[in-house]
């Protein structure tokens, strides 16, 4: 086995053949066997294999985008299960973007945030309020609901509003550290949910526990977005943008500053890094992705109420980050995909199967033990197992490797001569 892997590792053409055949096989099996969840998951996992190939990054991206934007929808489109597959894929995308946002806060900047879903809620409510008749209750001007075209502007607005709340939360909260920070953010998450739950009096802003119903579907060039298969593409575009931005930030000056703050606050400050500003930036950037996805979520569900934003959601997102590998973008993507699919597909399928078994009288499983209800138990188990055996996560974070040639191509060597030392560095 190991020998084979070694051969595979060295031979690019072989890799191309294997991954091509894999994608083709899973594509055809999903195309033909429509109700096969397994085929759907296998096709999705081709992206994971793609990650491990030794192609250049550009090739990987092109193949990945091709699979996601053409092959997956096409293969799934041949039957009744189409929309439910796309629904799952859309939710996976939403959770990945949120997990990437949280990864900046927890993984890179090292600030444990247990109330992260609050920003998602803020994004969802921002669109929900103005895309229903709700805004008429307190806005003195304008006519609501706004049309579906406004959705695209609200993506930006949701992003900005969430970022602002990220900063507002950060200013008081960042005075405490570590465990205390976790507890305070947990409190913040709950406060936001409870405020939304109760903000129907004195002025009815959020419609309280009743929630906001019939949110306007987004509209583009006269086409209304109603189905998961359409939202899938919206989410895909935002997700790709998110990954792009997160990667760029990670390997830039601000990414280094985040990691430095995580590693040692005092030393980071001594190197001239403004502590509060850097942490606030992490909160704001992390929150903004979440807020943007909140807007999409509100439009997709066409219904927003506080029960979608409980503490369990925050914990779920944190589990994704820890499972995948804190600070590792590929890891977090994998973690988010696994946890979401486990939640939506595996557990529900398992429950259905067990129900069938008990209906046909083979075995009897009490309702309280159905896998769908064991979500928290399973998360707990996952966390314990990972803390014990793989604390770095599935795909641990990697430090950037530098190329010696590029490093050496600089001008004169400081150690070579006194002149060099003065001229090269200490001039600026």
């Amino acid at each position, binding site marked *: 086995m190991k020998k084979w892997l070694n051969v595979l590792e060295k031979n690019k053409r072989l890799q191309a053949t294997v991954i091509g055949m894999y994608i083709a096989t899973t594509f055809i099996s999903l195309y033909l066997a429509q109700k096969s969840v397994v085929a759907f998951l296998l096709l999705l996992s081709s992206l994971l294999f793609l990650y491990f190939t030794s192609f250049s990054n550009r090739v990987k991206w092109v193949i990945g985008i091709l699979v996601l934007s053409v092959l997956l929808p096409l293969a799934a489109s041949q039957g009744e299960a189409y929309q439910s597959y796309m629904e799952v894929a859309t939710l996976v995308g939403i959770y990945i973007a949120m997990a990437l946002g949280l990864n900046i806060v927890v993984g890179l900047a090292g600030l444990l945030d247990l109330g992260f879903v609050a920003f998602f809620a803020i994004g969802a409510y921002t669109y929900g309020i103005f895309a229903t008749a709700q805004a008429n209750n307190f806005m003195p001007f304008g006519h609501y609901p706004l049309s579906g075209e406004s959705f695209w502007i609200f993506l930006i607005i949701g992003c900005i509003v969430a970022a602002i709340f990220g900063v507002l939360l950060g200013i008081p909260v960042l005075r405490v550290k570590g465990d205390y920070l976790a507890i305070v953010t947990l409190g913040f998450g709950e406060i936001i949910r409870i405020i939304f739950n109760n903000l129907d009096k004195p002025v009815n802003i959020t419609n309280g526990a009743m929630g906001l119903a019939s949110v306007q579907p987004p509209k583009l060039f006269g086409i209304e977005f109603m189905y998961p298969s359409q939202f899938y593409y919206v989410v895909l575009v935002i997700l790709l943008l998110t990954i792009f*931005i997160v990667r*760029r*930030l990670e390997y*830039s*000056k*601000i990414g*280094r*500053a985040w*990691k*430095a703050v995580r*590693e*040692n606050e*005092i*030393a*980071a*400050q*001594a*190197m*001239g*890094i*403004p*502590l509060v500003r850097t942490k606030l930036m992490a909160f704001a950037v992390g929150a903004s992705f979440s807020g943007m996805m909140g807007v999409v979520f509100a439009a997709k569900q066409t219904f927003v109420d506080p029960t979608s934003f409980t503490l369990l959601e925050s914990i779920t997102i944190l589990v994704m980050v820890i499972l995948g590998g804190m600070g590792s973008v590929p890891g977090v993507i994998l973690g988010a995909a696994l946890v979401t699919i486990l939640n939506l597909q595996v557990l529900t399928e398992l429950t259905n199967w067990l129900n069938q078994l008990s209906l046909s009288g083979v075995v009897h499983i009490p309702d309280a033990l159905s896998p769908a209800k064991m979500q928290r138990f399973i998360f707990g188990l996952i966390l314990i197992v990972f803390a014990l055996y793989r604390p770095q996560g599935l795909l641990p974070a990697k*430090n*950037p*490797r*530098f190329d*010696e040639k*590029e*490093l*050496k*191509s*600089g*001008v004169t*060597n*400081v*150690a070579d001569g*006194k002149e060099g*030392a*003065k001229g*090269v*560095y*200490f001039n*600026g």
Partner: protein
Amino acid sequence: MSILTVKQLTKQFGGLIANNNIDMDVQKGSITAVIGPNGAGKTTLFNMVTGVYQPTSGDILLNGESLVGLKPHQVAQKGISRTFQNIRLFRAMTVLENVMVGMHTHLRSGLFHMILSTPLMRKEEKEAKQEAYRLLQYVGLESLYNEEAKNLPYGAQRKLEIARALATKPKVLLLDEPAAGMNPKETAELTKLIYDMREQLQLTIILIEHDMKLVMEISEHIIVLDHGEKIAEGTPDDIRNNEKVIEAYLGKGATTAS
């Protein structure tokens, strides 16, 4: 010409007076040592100069400009950099990244440059990398540039802290027990490095050190603290023969040694 002036600096932690009315005048381009028994208030003095602690009273002037009230990162931007007594590296980052963090304030590109990876930003990053590599060469760690900082041997970690401090382009460099835990060979290398930095990079260096051989060898000016008070200052020869210092810190053997 003095570059750093400390005037009647006092720090109280509750009832404990860690520093009491300390006066210090550091000449530009000099190597100054601060010595004294453990608990004398040497690191407290460093922490006040770098903005980690705010003084209870007194003033700190860098080129005539007061540093009191500034945050640590602002002090760093003014041109004071430091290393730490208990090594504080960014342990999970690579050696080269550690040095690049030191350049933070000198990299100008903003958020949009970073996201769009503009030519300006790429050029700046590339120069920063090369500069970081040169600094590693300077302290002799260039072969370890891709290692995680936590995997480095002890002496190398101390050197990396110096390289990282140099990356901030300081005018004044504070070294807090740079030779602690080093063997004689490493100490000799370090002594040369400190000397070279002053000569080649026109730095002003202030160091806290217990290794008297190193202190007496390279410093031009020595300040002795005991129980938070300055008990003596002067050239190495003055200090070696100062009765108060011998009693409080050096011990009787010091006059005959070295």
